[in-house]
């Protein structure tokens, strides 16, 4: 079947899912999976084939003809959407089930279909006006999904913050598309790299899509939205929805000419996001917030790759630009897979314990072995450790940066610091996930809820296993995915297309495979030894305390104390402390909270000033009719004077 037929099947299935979701959860699941499968089929047939799919219709909507297009770049994002969307639908059936949430489960199913459909439209539409409509639908469906559990005030607050931030971005997109249409004379989108006068529009697009992508200073909505949404929604938001922002940046930096400084700015934004995002992640105590900030970091990594590619465009060097862009695009897939896996794991913990605070958890590996194992696998992937997929895409970005640094020229001055910051971010990511894994799953249970946790059912485990499988496959056989990524790079810059995989990637694949064999052999040997000799359980070293309790374990704040200290200038932690005093100290307290620095220290005061200024203007609105008439008279007299004195012809 052609991509067009598959896409229309997918759209029909999703619409059917949207309608049936209100009543029949099983039918909804069938339709959504069918939609995801056909959509994936369409994306893969474009990625593995040689030609793009394009469809111009005679049907007009809002005075513009419908124009759809699926090329390498959009097909990559579409494939990710279908995988995560399908996995999330399976997960949601058990996680947000009818019996636990009788009111919001049907709503959740409908909005889920609407979100998948609208994101699919954003990816395929090739007309500025229709793009804006689809973009708005996407933003609104995500808003309703975030607010599924709307009885809780913090969920409502997170939803409003998301909606406000999202619309601030949409304003920029309105400006971008209208200016583009005004300068080209048509709403049609497509490659127009020759029209160099369009280059400055890139900045507006960067701001608009940057908000959605959660780039560092624009990420204010992201942590609270991801933390407060139901976990399957967090997974698709973090795995796919923020990638729509990345898609916008990649798409329009590919189609339009870019300003000379674009590469520098995007690389700089990416490096900042990567480093500060992971610094904030490390300081969190709420594990979903940690994952959310980690998404900021990963968007940073993707943008470093995109920025390096833009630098390569400016300086005309395809060899390293291709590597960096391939790394960025592959990281879109990888981050989508492992972050959705991690959020599913987080949801499983939340489902079992009802708390997001790591200081209340611990020791879950005994009761939740599957979740522990899968979360550990996701952590290895997200930290960029071999032999999983996180390293593969970061490796490509590193290769691009190193080649740029070695090739000399001005781009080296951007590539070297970016590589260093990427390495620091990677180290911090590892530390963050060591902390999260240790706090949640290892040690002894810190509270009763943690002690009575239970493993999730098959409905939640199956999608996690699928995503974990994807992480392993990309990690062990990166070479299989090179043609797909090369196809997308070719759509971005036709001149850069090459089907030959870079040698370091081939090496990495074989090293990973070897490592995997070694690790499996070692694990099998350990398993056997444990079975043959039996396990001997004993107390851990308890520092000589006579009666150690579970509360004497490291807390997440104490684990992260030193590193949080390095980033105190941006984290601005709030501390409350009462030291133990005297020989028989009665009570001691140490509380630490990391605020949302950008939101609370910058945006909060600024909006307070704006509100104050507006309320002083509101004093004119006092309800006295006489004064209102006076305003009119004063206005009339002023106009008359203007005409008499200045404006008379």
């Amino acid at each position, binding site marked *: 079947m052609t991509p067009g037929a598959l896409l229309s099947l997918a759209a029909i299935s999703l619409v059917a899912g949207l309608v049936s979701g209100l009543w029949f959860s099983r039918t909804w699941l069938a339709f959504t999976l069918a939609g995801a499968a056909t959509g994936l089929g369409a994306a893969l047939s474009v990625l593995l084939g040689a030609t793009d799919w394009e469809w111009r219709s005679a049907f007009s909507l809002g005075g513009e003809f419908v124009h759809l297009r699926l090329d390498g770049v959009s097909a990559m994002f579409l494939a990710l959407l279908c995988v995560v969307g399908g996995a999330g639908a399976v997960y949601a059936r058990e996680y947000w089930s009818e019996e636990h949430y009788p009111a919001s489960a049907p709503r959740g199913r409908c909005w889920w279909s609407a979100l998948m459909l609208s994101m699919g439209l954003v990816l395929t539409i090739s007309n500025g006006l229709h793009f804006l409509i689809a973009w708005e639908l996407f933003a609104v469906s995500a808003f309703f999904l975030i607010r599924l559990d709307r009885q809780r005030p913090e969920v409502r607050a997170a939803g409003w913050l998301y909606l406000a931030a999202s619309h601030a971005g949409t304003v920029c997109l309105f400006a971008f598309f209208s200016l583009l249409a005004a300068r080209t004379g048509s709403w049609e989108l497509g490659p127009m790299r020759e029209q160099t006068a369009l280059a400055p529009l890139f900045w507006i697009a960067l701001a608009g899509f940057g908000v959605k992508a959660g780039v560092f200073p624009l990420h204010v909505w992201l942590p609270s939205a991801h933390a407060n949404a139901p976990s399957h929604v967090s997974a698709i938001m973090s795995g796919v929805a923020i990638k729509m922002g990345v898609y916008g940046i990649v798409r329009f930096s590919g189609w339009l000419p870019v300003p000379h400084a674009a590469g520098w700015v995007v690389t700089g934004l990416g490096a900042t996001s990567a480093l500060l995002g992971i610094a904030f992640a490390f300081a969190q105590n709420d594990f979903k917030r940690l994952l959310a900030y980690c998404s900021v970091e990963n968007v940073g990594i993707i943008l470093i790759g995109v920025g390096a590619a833009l630098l390569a465009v400016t300086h005309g060097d395809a060899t390293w630009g291709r590597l960096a862009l391939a790394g960025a695009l592959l990281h879109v897939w990888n981050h989508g897979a492992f972050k959705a896996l991690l959020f599913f794991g987080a949801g499983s913990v939340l489902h079992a314990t009802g708390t997001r605070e790591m200081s209340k958890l611990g020791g879950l590996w005994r009761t939740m072995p599957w979740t522990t194992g899968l979360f550990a696998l996701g952590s290895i992937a997200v930290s960029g450790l071999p032999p999983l997929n996180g390293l593969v895409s970061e490796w490509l970005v590193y290769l691009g940066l190193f080649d740029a640094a070695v090739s000399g020229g001005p781009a080296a001055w951007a590539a070297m610091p970016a590589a260093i910051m990427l390495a620091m971010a990677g180290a911090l990511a590892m530390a963050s996930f060591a902390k999260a894994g240790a706090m949640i799953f290892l040690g002894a249970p810190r509270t009763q809820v943690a002690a009575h946790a239970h493993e999730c059912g098959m409905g939640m485990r199956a999608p996690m296993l699928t995503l974990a499988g994807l992480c392993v496959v990309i990690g062990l056989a990166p070479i299989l995915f090179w043609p797909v990524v090369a196809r997308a790079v070719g759509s971005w810059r036709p001149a850069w297309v090459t089907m030959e995989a870079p040698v370091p990637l081939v090496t990495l694949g074989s090293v990973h495979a070897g490592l995997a064999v070694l690790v499996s052999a070692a694990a099998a040997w350990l398993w056997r030894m444990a079975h043959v000799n039996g396990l001997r359980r004993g107390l851990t070293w308890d520092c000589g305390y006579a009666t150690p309790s579970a509360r004497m374990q490291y807390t997440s704040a104490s684990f992260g104390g030193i590193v949080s200290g390095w980033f105190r200038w941006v984290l601005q932690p709030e501390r409350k402390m009462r030291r133990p005093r005297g020989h028989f100290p009665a009570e001691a307290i140490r509380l630490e909270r990391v605020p949302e620095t950008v939101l609370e220290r910058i945006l909060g005061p600024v909006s307070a000033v704006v509100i104050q200024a507006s309320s002083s203007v509101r004093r004119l609105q*006092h309800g006295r009719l006489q004064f209102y008439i006076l305003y009119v008279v004063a206005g009339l007299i002023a106009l008359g004077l203007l005409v008499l004195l200045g404006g008379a012809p």
Partner: protein
Amino acid sequence: MSGGTLNLLIGLAMGLNLLALGSSRLPSLIRAMSLQGVFLGVMPLLMEYETLNWRVVAVALATMVGKGVLIPGLLRRAMRAANIEREIEPFISFVPSLLLGAGGTIAAVALARALPLLPEHAGTLLVPGAIASILTGFILLIGRAKAISQVCGYLILENGIYLFGLLLIHSTPLLVESGILLDVTVGVFVIGIIVDRIQRAFDSLDTRKLTTLRE
């Protein structure tokens, strides 16, 4: 004869403006306004006495009846129903409003000189009279607290606009004239109802008390 009489009438109307500004009793305010309405009704007959037709006569009669009898009657009824006689605490008290009105009238005459008018209008007081009436209407609207005084201010403002309209008597169709008149009458009806409602809801016609409704 027409120019002189017309100017005399307009001059009287301008005098009535000052009377309206200076009087604290509502009945005299209404009387000044209704007399002004009658003068205005006569004007088209004077301007067009050579080529009188049924159209002009109809407009003149309707104006005289509407502004001289109908609207003042409605206002007197509202006044009696609300049981008030005087404007007690105006925002701008009577002497300052008189001074403002007089200043406004002088300014209007001066301004009319500066305006590029047609030669046949340059000699009449039509334009200064119109501007002065509009200013008077505004001063009443801004300076008075009782709703009925404000209605009178609104009607005097409308009289000023009517005077401007007379400049165009040749080119304004009947329909527009009668439309304006109908508008005013309906406006006064509505205001009469509102006055009644304000009276019942707040037990007063003081519009300052409406500030509680501002949001």
